[in-house]
């Protein structure tokens, strides 16, 4: 991993209990939103933080631009230790980090151009420099024609583009995306994610994506941290996390993004429709490709029909599984199974007459 641009060391963020400080002292317990996180985010990567609501991911990301400050532990951003810095010293740090939000948080009283110009005004740019930069940014995010429009006249996707343009205005090294696509429809989500990918690739900006949608991690993240109750419970390469999730919570997220494996109910219906042997074979970068799978079946004289499954991309690498009905004589099917096991991982579901329930290896 290259030099970390963001480093958490035993970072803790505690909020006083509900009803304010006075109540907390008396009875209501404080909430530990972030509970001892140690994490390095490398310069130039797209890093995902996934978790259910209340897992602490929004608080974690707000520690990076000091919208929240740590109760204990430290956060170092681009060489600056934020621990104990005064509010006035934190402002330039914040100005150097872009942030986009689920609800876009655009100023309704300003036009699109006025919104994008806001951080430049804060940074003290001259009017001519601001105008030029705003035009450049609006062209980059593809809404140059909306410069004079007010946010109320924009669609969700357009609003988020304004949000991204605004966040990039002062040439930040880091862009924080807090559930940036959660309020958007699937198609617009894909557009905005593609834009974030361009931001990362063309501008070299480190992107930290907070999400509860594994789909977001699947399509753009290089690495991912899974959060639960304020802690990072799983961390790694997005592809590794998808192909070999360790924690139950991670498995649930992976299952929500990949619907390639038949559920027990689906299996029952498959067995009802297809009398032959039902097997699920994994297709990914490490194990067999679908070409290899078909080759094995042809060699053994077994007919294979694809009855379920799908192959998609995780971190831009192929990943998925196919469920096949194998038909042929018993010996040949056995030989084919052995052959398949040699090239990839296989889950044998048996036949309608003799169902097998194997533990899924995912």
């Amino acid at each position, binding site marked *: 991993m290259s030099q970390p641009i963001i480093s958490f060391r035993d970072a803790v963020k505690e909020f006083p209990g509900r009803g304010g*400080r006075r109540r907390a002292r008396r009875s209501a317990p404080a909430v530990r939103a972030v509970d001892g996180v140690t994490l390095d985010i490398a310069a130039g990567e797209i890093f995902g933080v996934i978790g259910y609501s209340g897992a602490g991911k929004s608080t974690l990301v707000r520690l990076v631009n000091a919208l929240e400050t740590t109760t204990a532990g430290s956060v170092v951003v681009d060489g600056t230790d934020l621990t104990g810095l005064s509010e006035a010293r934190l402002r330039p740090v914040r100005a*150097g980090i872009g942030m986009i*939000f689920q609800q876009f948080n*655009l100023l*309704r*009283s300003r036009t699109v151009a006025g919104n994008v110009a806001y951080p430049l*005004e*804060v940074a003290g740019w001259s009017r001519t420099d601001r105008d030029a930069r705003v035009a450049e940014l609006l062209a980059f995010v593809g809404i140059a024609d909306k410069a004079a429009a*007010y946010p109320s006249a924009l669609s969700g996707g357009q609003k988020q583009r304004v949000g991204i343009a605004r966040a990039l205005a002062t040439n930040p090294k880091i862009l924080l995306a807090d559930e940036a696509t959660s309020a958007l429809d699937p198609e617009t989500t894909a557009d905005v994610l593609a834009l974030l990918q361009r931001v990362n690739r063309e501008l070299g900006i480190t992107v930290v994506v907070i999400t509860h949608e594994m789909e977001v991690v699947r399509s753009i993240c290089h690495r991912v941290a899974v959060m639960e109750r304020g802690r990072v419970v799983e961390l790694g390469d997005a592809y590794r996390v998808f192909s070999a999730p360790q924690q139950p919570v991670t498995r649930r997220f992976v299952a929500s993004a990949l619907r390639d494996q038949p559920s027990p109910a689906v299996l029952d219906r498959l067995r009802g429709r297809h009398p032959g042997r039902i097997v699920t074979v994994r297709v990914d970068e490490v194990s067999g490709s679908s070409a290899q799978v078909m080759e094995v079946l042809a060699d053994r004289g077994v007919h294979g029909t694809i009855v379920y499954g799908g192959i998609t991309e995780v971190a831009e690498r192929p990943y998925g599984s196919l469920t096949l009905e194998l038909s042929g004589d018993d010996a040949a099917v056995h030989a084919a199974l052995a052959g398949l096991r040699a090239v990839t991982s296989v889950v044998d579901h048996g036949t309608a007459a003799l169902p097998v329930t194997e533990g899924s290896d995912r």
Partner: protein
Amino acid sequence: MRPDLVPLLWEAFGETLYMVLITLAVGGFCGLVLGLGLYLTRPGNLLANRPVFAVLNVAVNIVRPVPFLIFLVAIGPLTRAVVGTTIGIEAFTFAMCIMAAFVFARLVEQNLVSIDPGVIEAARAMGASPLRIVRTVVVPEALSPLILGYTFLFVGVLDMSAIAGYLGGGGLGDFAIVNGYRQYDWAVTAIVVVIIIVIVQLVQWLGNSLARRALRR
């Protein structure tokens, strides 16, 4: 109405305008500052400060419900200390400014509470200082309801000016009582009422159209 009353009516109109405009300017400004103070120091907000908020909140709650007639008399000593006298148009305008500030403070606060906290967070994330956020986010984002609140304040101030006038401050209220009510000249009272209605309608129309223009939705 007797023709010789016309110059007196104009004079009264001028006095009312004087009291109302000064109160709107001074009281309105102080009220805006007080209201911003209430909003900003509220726990969880930009300049959260529980003691300051508590003091402001209690002060507003104490002053606002006092009937203006009683308030006017009750702050006599303060008025004397500041203006030098407790009667006359200047003295009453001073009391009106104070009452207007406290009334407007609550109106301002209530309108600001409706601002989306996400927008303020976004401004903080861009490195804006609290003062800049007040100037460039809080006030512009709530401008439309603030204008409507200010219009509402105008009607309240006009009402106060009539009471002050009755106690000897002059103005339209005083004119209606002295030359109308006490002379059994209902026409005079009616003319004053019509003038006041026209003023209120004009101001309300102006406030509404300004508020609509400020509303970018």
